[in-house]
C-alpha cells in the first residue's frame, strides 16, 4: 500500500508549486503625490544664473541640499514623486494575499559650482530605478560641461 502512496505523494509535491500564482499590475498615475523630499519646481529656479548666482544664494533660496559632494563642489536636492501604483496579488493553495505599493520616480536637481562658489552648471534629472545613487552622481559629474555654461532645466524628464 505504501509503495503506491509514496510515488503519489512525490508527484503531488512536484505539482504543488505549480498551483501558486502571482499577479502584478502597474497602474500609471499623474505625478501629483510627493513620496519623499521637497520638490523643486522649475519656476523656483529662475534665479539660478550660471557664473553669477553664488552658493550662499542657492542655500538661501532652496535650503540645505540633501547631498554635498565636497571636492567636486556639487549640491544635490532629491525628491520622489509617485508615477504609478503597483497592484499585486499572490495566491497559493488555499491562501493568498494582495496589496498595493507606490511606484516612485526619483528626481534630483544637481548644481555644480566653480572654484569661486558660483553656479557653473545645473540640471534637473531623473534617476533610473536600476541605477545606484552614487553612480547617478558620478555619471553627471563625468558628463562634459557645456561650451558655455547654461541652464539645462527640464532635461532628463
Amino acid at each position, binding site marked *: 500500500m505504501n509503495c503506491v502512496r509514496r510515488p503519489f505523494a512525490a508527484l503531488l509535491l512536484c505539482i504543488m508549486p505549480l498551483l501558486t500564482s502571482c499577479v502584478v499590475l502597474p497602474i500609471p498615475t499623474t505625478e501629483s503625490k510627493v513620496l519623499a523630499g521637497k520638490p523643486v519646481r522649475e519656476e523656483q529656479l529662475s534665479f539660478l544664473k550660471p557664473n553669477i548666482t553664488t552658493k550662499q544664494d542657492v542655500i538661501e533660496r532652496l535650503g540645505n541640499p*540633501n*547631498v*554635498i559632494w565636497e571636492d567636486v563642489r556639487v549640491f544635490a536636492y532629491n525628491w520622489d514623486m509617485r508615477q504609478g501604483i503597483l497592484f499585486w496579488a499572490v495566491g497559493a493553495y488555499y491562501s493568498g494575499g494582495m496589496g498595493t505599493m507606490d511606484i516612485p520616480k526619483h528626481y534630483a536637481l544637481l548644481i555644480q559650482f566653480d572654484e569661486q562658489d558660483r553656479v557653473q552648471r545645473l540640471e534637473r534629472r531623473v534617476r533610473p530605478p536600476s541605477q545606484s545613487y552614487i553612480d547617478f*552622481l558620478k555619471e553627471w559629474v563625468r558628463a562634459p560641461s557645456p561650451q558655455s555654461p547654461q541652464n539645462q532645466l527640464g532635461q532628463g524628464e
Partner: protein
Amino acid sequence: MKRNGFHSEQRHAEGRGLWHSQDTLPSLLSALVLMVLFTHLAGCTSLNVLSDAEKSAINAGEKTVVLLKIECTIDNKPQEPFRASMWTGEPIVALGIGGFETVGEPGRVAHGFLSEDSRRAGWTCFALPSGVYYLAVLGPESDAGIKNIREAPRWRVDIPENTRLLYIGTLQLTGRADGAFLLGGKIIKPANNEEFIVKNEQELAKSLLAEHFPGGGEMKTSPMQRWRRGDPIIIRTPKPDSGK
C-alpha cells in the same frame, strides 16, 4: 550486503505506520552535539581583532584606526555594550557605517576590538581609509542584531588624511528593561530619546592605542558629529589608493 550509513537498515515500525532507521537517532544526536559544540566554540572565539592585512594597511598609512568607546547603562547600571558571544543573551549595540559609495547610508559592519579587556570596557574600532563616514549606532536593544541599521541614530565621522590613529569620542547610551523573554532574560529597549552625550576620553584612548600600536605615531582626536534627518550628507571622493 549491509550498508552502513544514515539511511541504512530502514524498517517499518510494526503497526505504527512510521519509517525509522536503527542508526538514525544516534546519528542525529551526534550531529546535534557537534552543532552545539561548534556554535559554543564559535561564540567563545568571536572577538574580532584587527587582521594582519588591516594592521599592515594602518602601518603603511593607507588606513586609520578609528577608535570609539560606548558606555552603556541599563536601568542606571553599567552594562557591557558588546557581548562576547552571539549566544549569550546580553543586550547588544550594533554599529553600521556608510561612506562615499553608499552616499552615507549605513550598512552593518564588523567592528573590531583591540583586546578582550578593552571590549569589556566598551572600546571598539574600525580600520578605514580617510574620508567622511556616517556611523549608525543601534541600541542598547535586545533585538539590535535584527533591526534596520538605517533607522539608527547617526554621527558624522571625518577621517583626515595622513592619520593612523584617530579617537572619535565616547558615546553614552542608556537603556531600560521592559519585561522579560519567555525563556528568561530581560527585554532591553533604548532610553536615550535621541539625546546623546559624546564625552572626550582622549587620554585613555591615547594610552590604549599606544599599547597596541606602539609605532603608530600621534593620535588625533576628531569628535563625531551628530547627524539628524534633514541635515546634508557630505561625501568626499576617496583617494585612488585608499581602501587597499
